[in-house]
């Protein structure tokens, strides 16, 4: 009659020494047990609901028991769902039990500690920008079926549906929002102007306009796209790369534009110009022109990071990570290393130099020496990198606490040897510079983190 088997009640009664129970009593008890269990479950569901979960846990049940003034069951606390084993004690009579693994004590003690679970953390992204969901990895792919349904549901809202691309595919316009003729014309003119090698005046007028005009917001995505396109297709052309970087700088300068949502689209282009493998055509522009471009990109990057770092907590770490990766990769040319060192120094500051560059200098020294020995163009390039590293180290000096612990460093050869910790080439230069502060900062082997 009841779901709870009355046999169970008889069994329990027998186990505590009550041999014969009246059939009515047994059934009554079985029904009561069933009701009590459902009562506990109902309470437990409340705790599940308030825990904003969809699975009931043993903790919920313990909480429910506590609420009903019953002593909770101990020994079932578990963060993962319990596994039930099934044993058959007769035809159609399965018996379920909690599987208890047998654990070898010796083994358990000697086993390596399990991995620490990963730390809870948060990320932020745009779920929607002005009513439209951007298609970034953090957002789910739009399921055409659900889009269809949603569009039907908000039938009065067809314009918005069209904007978000949920409209009928056949009439989906290529341009999702309408640009005025004037803006289109402006865009074409600007793009033409800044790539015009012959007319300096024309170019500067275009940049000036970008820096000051107030109504350009609608064009930002197009400019970003333009830059990305040009950068990917013109890696050999220093002029185009420089111009596109200047275009970005001009946009960044414009006080009336809000670039925060577009920064993630911006950064790859700048990074390419900073740490790209081969920028420009050495035969045409000379072997070292690309360093100027890298310098410029580095400053642009640091400006971006300063302005938008606070609104996107992962921006700086991401940039620093990719810079460091390229710095540590000795197969990359010196140009890339140069850019990476610049980027690290600008993004992460003295702290970053201390923790990210300084410990790696020793390893890098080998590579640098190789470069210095080479008689070809490599020597010149390596020289640039050396300068960049020294510049980075100088930031350390500025940052260091000026207490001048002059009890400190041995003189002469001993000092030179200790400076070897940052690599021979760089160490020698530091030594030669003879500047107390710089030496002190470099030797301060105590990263304050």
């Amino acid at each position, binding site marked *: *009659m*009841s779901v709870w088997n009355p046999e169970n009640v008889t069994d329990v009664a027998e186990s505590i020494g009550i041999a014969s129970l009246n059939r009515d009593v047994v059934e*009554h008890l079985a*029904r*009561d047990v*069933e*009701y009590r269990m*459902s*009562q506990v479950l*109902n309470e437990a569901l*409340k*705790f599940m*609901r*308030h*825990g*904003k979960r*969809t699975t009931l846990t043993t*903790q919920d049940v313990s*909480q429910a028991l506590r*609420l009903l003034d019953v002593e909770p069951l101990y020994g079932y606390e578990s*963060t993962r769902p319990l596994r039930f084993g099934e044993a058959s004690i007769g035809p159609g009579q399965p018996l379920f039990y909690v599987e208890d693994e047998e654990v070898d004590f010796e083994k358990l003690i000697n086993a390596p500690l399990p991995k620490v679970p*990963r*730390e*809870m*953390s*948060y*990320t*932020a*992204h*745009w*779920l*929607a*920008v*002005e*009513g*439209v*969901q951007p298609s970034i990895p*953090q*957002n*789910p792919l*739009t399921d055409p079926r*659900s889009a269809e*349904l*949603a569009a039907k*549901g*908000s*039938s*009065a*809202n067809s314009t*918005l549906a069209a904007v*978000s691309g949920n409209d009928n595919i056949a009439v989906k316009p290529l341009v999702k929002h309408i640009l005025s003729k004037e803006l289109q014309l402006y865009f074409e003119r600007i793009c033409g102007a800044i790539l015009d090698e012959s007319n300096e005046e024309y170019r500067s007028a275009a940049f000036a306009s970008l820096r000051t005009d107030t109504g350009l917001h609608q064009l930002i995505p197009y400019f970003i796209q333009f830059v990305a396109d040009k950068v990917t297709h013109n890696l050999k052309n220093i002029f185009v790369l420089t111009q596109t970087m200047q275009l970005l700088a001009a946009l960044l300068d414009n*006080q*009336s*534009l*809000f670039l*925060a949502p577009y920064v993630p689209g911006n950064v790859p282009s700048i990074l390419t110009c900073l740490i790209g493998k081969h920028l420009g055509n050495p035969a045409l522009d000379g072997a070292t022109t690309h360093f100027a471009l890298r310098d410029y990109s580095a400053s642009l990057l640091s400006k971006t990071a300063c302005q938008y770092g*606070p*609104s996107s*907590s992962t921006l700086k770490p991401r940039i620093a990570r990719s810079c460091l990766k390229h710095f540590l990769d000795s197969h990359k040319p010196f140009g890339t290393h140069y850019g990476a060192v610049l980027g690290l120094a600008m993004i992460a500051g003295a702290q970053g130099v201390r923790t990210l560059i300084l410990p790696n200098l020793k390893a890098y020294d080998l590579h640098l020496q190789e470069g210095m020995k080479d008689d070809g163009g490599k020597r010149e390039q390596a020289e640039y990198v050396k300068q960049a590293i020294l510049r980075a180290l100088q930031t350390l000096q500025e940052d260091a606490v000026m207490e001048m612990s002059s009890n400190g460093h041995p003189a002469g050869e001993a000092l030179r040897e200790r400076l070897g910790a940052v690599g021979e080439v760089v160490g020698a230069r530091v030594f030669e510079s003879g500047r107390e502060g710089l030496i002190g900062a470099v030797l301060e082997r105590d990263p304050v*983190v």
Partner: protein
Amino acid sequence: MAVQPPPPLRTESVGPASAGGMGTPTAGTPVGQAPGAGSNQNLNQIVLEYLSKKGYSRTEAMLRRESGNIAFDATGQPVTFDDKFKGRRWHEAYSVVKTWIDSILDIYKPELSRILWPLFVHCFIETIADCFPGEGRFFFTECRKPFDDEHSDDLRALSNVQEPEHVQQNDIAQLYRTNKYRLTLSKMGFATLIEFLKTKEGEGGKSINFLINNHLDIRTVDRAAIGGVRGLQKLMEEKQGDEQAPAEDEGIPGHHPGSANLSPDATGALHRLQLAPMPMEIDLMDDVKAELNHEDSSNPPRPGRSTLVEQFEQRIKVEPSDDTAPSRDSIPFPPSTARDVAMEVQKVKEDRDRFRIEGKTGGVGPGVSVTMITFHNTFDTVNCVEFSDDNTLAAVGTAESYIRVWSLDNRALASPQDPPGFQPSSSRRLVGHSGPVYALSFSPSAAVPAPPTNGHTDHQSSPDSHPRYMLSCSADTTIRLWSLDTWTNLVVYRSHNSPVWDVRFCPHGHYFVSSSADRTARLWSTPQIAPLRIFAGHDSDVETVAWHPNGAYVFTGAGVGDKTVRMWSIAQGTQARIFTGHTGNVNAIACAPNGHVVASADDKGVIILWDLRTGRLVKRMRGHGPGGIWSLGWSVESSVLVSGGADCSVRVWDVQPSKETQAKVNGENGAVAKVDGPAINGGAVASKVGKVKGREQSTADMISDFKTKKSPVYTARFTNMNLVVAGGAYLP
């Protein structure tokens, strides 16, 4: 005595109220259960003789009449309806009514079908109380189908009631037994019902009549005359839309729609509410004005913009004549400080500078931007997510009893109590509770940025505007106040005797309100460890609380069994409004910043808007999947509502009353609505909402629906600058 048809003797339309004690079979057990077959007649004779001899003439007459009513079976035993079906008599009685209502004229059907639920509950309870567990269970499984949608929670709570003592102990059963379920029927409908029950008196009509008299409170209205939302036309429409929702005055509380007056002869007149914003302190106002003047002179507004002082004056001036403001005397606050001045100044600035969200204009909803903050590696232990008003702090309460706070701008969270040399990180753990933490609330704060430079954000808030306190509540029945300067626990508030589900700071700080599984909500002030007010009245757990923006009222929402939203006055400590209409647990409530509308959401995925002044339902909005809407938020202009919930979506809603409702209101004001065919059909064309092929479809007032990637949305709200901030946990 021969078998004879029972003459219709009863003249009154109601059954006996005397029958039906606990556990005893109700209504008219035959006089004697004689052992022998033939002896029954003799026995009656003997008793009759005895009575006439003693001169008990009236008792004799009664006995004669009653024995005349009794039919006898083949063996001469008296057979009544009750005896014939024994445990199945309530089932039979219910079935009779159900079949009748199913086949009745369409005009009565919508309203009469509402009576089935309370009858179902009572028939079930009576069967169980009569000690027929098997029959009770059979009846329950057989007849529960139509109520699965609307009353699933109640059904679950009742499903395992099997013994009379369970009836005594089950909350829902007791609720229905000790209260009268109020229902509004039209006069004609009710009369037809009574007439039908009379003709079926022998087949269960009497039992049903007994239930209606004892456990139901039926109000009759002339629907044709009143028209409007309670009119027949509306009822027909709802039926067309297949929308099963209780009327606003239906249910256990038994009150006029919106009114909190529970006495049976209440007139339905509503209390006047004080909905206007709380007036500012005079000193504070002067200080703010001086500060704004200073600001204006040092930072003159761009041409075309109003000065801050003008903005401020305008802000104060907006005082609709039909709203009174609560007086500062009735709700005392500590004197204002420099911090309050800074916050007020910032509010005025935000008022001027924010991106305005207008309502749905020209059929296109406003484009809303949403920032989603997703928590990773939570292993589903996060119970709640909360952001501070100035958006610099995020806090989560976990099932593991601790609270974790992050700084959203990567600022180190330092404390003066840190040991020297300690490197504070941008996250802190607050340990103190001994049970899962269910809600958090930051004290009010405002983001006071450095002089704004055209959207280029650099949020260097001046330190004194940061939130200084946070409240948390937990299953360990305590509420704790944490200092956000030292990151330590300051006060433990003990008074609730069940898990505390929700806690909210007053919009002006100082006070807070908490709600608990002990069916009360309590008002506290931070310096006192005992509650100032206990709001008792809900019939089940108070799941959620919310404040009215002027701080003079709080709203509470209850779960299974009750499902009402109630509004309480802080000053009086009494209920000011009761709103019924939800069919699931009320999970979230939010009052519009203009103070006139409150939105509540339940775990069936329905959001209801209520008008506070009239106490009436404005509209029902659906679209969320089941599983609960956990958070609601209003735009600053009260023009748009945002919601987030278990179905991993953030949705934006238009709150303007839908056209049909407006038309209806006009109709109500104008001529009496006609109740004839064409009119009904005309009205029925309107909203056709409901389930389409099992999938929930959204109502037309949903502006947008942003899905997240496997991240249930725990909180979604507008910032003071009208950007939506949503928080959720990624659960792969």
